């Protein structure tokens, strides 16, 4: 974990440098599309930040000056499977966005949905050294959390302090400066496959850019789709993407759980392709134009021409009713939602004070999705669209842009993470001379 800790710290430094330059790119590496956005930060607000206003002052101070989207290639289930192809797609997106913005970007914040994220809730407790809580105490309490064994080849991508408790006060968001004795913390740790992250890093590096942050797309789409009271009272954001569906649960404005289901809209397309015996392109087109999950009697009469593009007249002149197409789509969508339901149950979502569910992502646009989801997941389901962001073109405001927009919000206003605080071990390591002197004093 130490190496990733260092990497994350270095990425934080780069993020700061990028904000100082005022231009940062965000990259959403999805299964069906790769989106690159270029953000420009307002330098006047940057000045406030340097004057000690902190990260809050950056919020809403950016403007999207370039957006480019390209079809994703070489990405399967939200993970890079063919490096060369993905690199080309990333290059296309980055070049398009740079062309639109007419600005060169060197720092990129990326997100991806795959890599089998796994959530851990950690707790730590420490005595406050001086009377009031300092940054050092927070670093100590974060370091005191006992990390479980993640498994081979897994590393933490997010380690966010979710809740602090000081003596009898159970819920503090920022205990610094408060008088107390016993400081305890609840931390949410999200681990992913290291290999996937390393692939992404290599891919970005091959595009001549530096990675200034990595975010799980479950988190990114949630911060753009959930409104403030949903984040506060408890809500789940379900981002149904192309290759995978990410689930995240928010409570008290912090992510407390994230997971992903490795089924998405692409599986619906392949089902259609198999079922109708048509190429994937045609299947995708039929899904987007005629797709649905609730069949009515009207749909039995709705005949749809299906062109197989084989040259065989009989095969190319088939017609299906819309009901048949819905009959292919619906089981797969139900499967996705049931998987999501299992994940939410595993996270004990039903114990939260509010059980709002927000559907977002490209596949959430299937007509009738809301009704089906409320039947499986619970009553409080709505379709979420990302927040409006300054300068974002109209074409990029749909639910399929939830993750990139959330990433932009994250870039402007990142959550404090474990690696923003110096861990005590590191502080001692930084002063070996002092330690040696101390040893001499104690032993002689």
């Amino acid at each position, binding site marked *: 974990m130490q190496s990733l800790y260092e990497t994350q710290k270095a990425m934080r430094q780069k993020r700061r440098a990028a904000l100082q330059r005022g231009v940062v790119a965000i990259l959403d590496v999805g299964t069906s599309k790769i989106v690159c956005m270029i953000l420009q930060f307002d330098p006047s607000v940057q000045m406030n930040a340097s004057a000690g206003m902190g990260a809050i002052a950056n919020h809403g101070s950016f403007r999207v000056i370039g957006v480019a989207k*390209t079809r994703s290639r070489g990405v399967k289930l939200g993970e890079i499977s063919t490096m060369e192809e993905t690199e*080309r*797609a990333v*290059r*296309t997106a*980055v*070049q398009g966005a*740079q*062309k639109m913005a*007419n*600005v*060169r970007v060197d720092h990129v914040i990326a997100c991806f949905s795959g890599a089998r994220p796994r959530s851990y809730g950690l707790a730590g407790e420490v005595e406050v050294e001086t009377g009031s809580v300092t940054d050092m105490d927070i670093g100590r309490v974060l370091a005191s959390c006992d990390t479980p064994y993640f498994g081979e080849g897994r590393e933490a991508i997010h380690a966010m302090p979710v809740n602090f408790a000081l003596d009898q006060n159970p819920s503090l968001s920022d205990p610094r400066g408060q008088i107390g004795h016993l400081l305890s913390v609840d931390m949410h740790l999200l681990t992913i496959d290291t290999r996937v992250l390393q692939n992404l890093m290599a891919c970005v590096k091959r*595009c*001549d850019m530096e990675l200034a942050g990595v975010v799980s797309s479950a988190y990114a789409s949630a911060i753009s789709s959930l409104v403030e009271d949903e984040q506060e009272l408890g809500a789940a954001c379900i981002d149904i993407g192309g290759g995978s569906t990410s689930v995240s649960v928010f409570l008290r404005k912090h992510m407390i759980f994230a997971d992903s289901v490795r089924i998405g809209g692409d599986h619906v397309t392949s089902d259609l392709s198999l079922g109708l015996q048509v190429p994937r392109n045609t299947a995708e087109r039929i899904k987007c134009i005629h797709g649905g999950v609730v069949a009515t009697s009207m749909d039995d009469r709705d005949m749809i021409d299906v062109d197989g593009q084989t*040259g*065989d*007249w009989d095969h*190319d*002149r088939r017609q299906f009713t819309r009901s048949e197409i819905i009959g292919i789509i619906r089981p797969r969508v139900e499967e996705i939602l049931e998987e999501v339901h299992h994940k939410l149950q595993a996270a004990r979502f039903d114990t939260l004070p509010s059980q709002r569910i927000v559907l977002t992502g490209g596949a959430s646009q299937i007509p009738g999705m809301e009704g089906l989801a409320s039947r499986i997941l619970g009553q409080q389901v709505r379709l979420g669209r990302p927040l409006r962001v300054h300068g974002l073109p109209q074409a990029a405001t749909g639910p399929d842009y939830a993750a990139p927009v959330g990433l932009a919000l994250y870039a402007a206003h990142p959550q404090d993470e474990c690696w923003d605080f110096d861990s005590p071990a590191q502080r001692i390591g930084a002063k070996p001379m002092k330690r040696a002197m101390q040893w001499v004093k104690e032993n002689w």
Partner: protein
Amino acid sequence: MRPIDRREPPVGHATPLENINQRKQDAPNIAPLGEVSAEKMERLFGQKTPEPPTPRLDPAPSRTKYKMQRLWLRPMVRGAVRTGVPLVTLLALGTYFLTNDTLRERFTQTLQEARSSIQSRPEFQIELMKINGASEALSKEVRTALNLQFPLNSFELNLEKVKDKVELIEAVKTASLFLRSGGLLEVDIDERMPVVLWRTGRELDMLDANGERTGILTSRLDRLDLPLIAGEAAEEHIDEALELYALAKPIAGRLRGLRRMGMRRWDMILDRGQTIQLPEANAAEALNRVLALNAAQQILARDVVTIDMRDATRPILRLTDVATEIIRVNATNE
């Protein structure tokens, strides 16, 4: 490729035109068997073979192109290429040109040739000179003074110099020169008109109203129409002299001229040696009195040498010696 249309075949005899149209319609549905040349297909089916679809190009930029674009987005690189490179190229070319003698010579030579080839065009040749507003004698004088050899190149002609040369001629007040199309040099001359002759020694100067000399005469007979004046600084009071001449119209036949005396007053000289001495001020009034006397008593027809009007209160007459003698004899006889 479109699937074959399985419509019912037309019943009955088809006209040749219908046959051709049917074949044209079916043409894209029939796949060629083996290699059939495009011309043969065209001849057979009366329609061009469809071009094979071009494979869709990868939209991704190559790595070099991507890097070049990112390099181009650097403001420094862009500025250097946009201003630096042209500037350096210009400077290098300039230095090379300035340091290379043969190149420079060739350049100047080419320039000269181009220049002379333009100058020698017929549009720039002057063939004629036309003089406006001058008498015949004056225009002859102008022509000899300028001494221009036609045809003449208008680039070689310095109009300023020519104008100065023309204006050096005394009879020319001002001159303006125009180059007209068709190779015509037009000289507009404002001529000085002589109004009086001024005798200085042997020659007679012709003067205009401002006292400027317009020419020289050797004989008074050349311009009998002009009045004659004489004396030092007489040219400064020509208007006064002309006024006196105008007044003296009744005795014009006897008038010889006016002489300026002592640079301050006029003497009117008549024939038979008679002189009317006029005062410095009110000369015209004095002359009028003399003319009135002459009209009443024919004073000028008598033996008077001088009528002295210098003192208006006391006109004095000087008689001829003969008259004085006669008066004296008559007095003694009485």
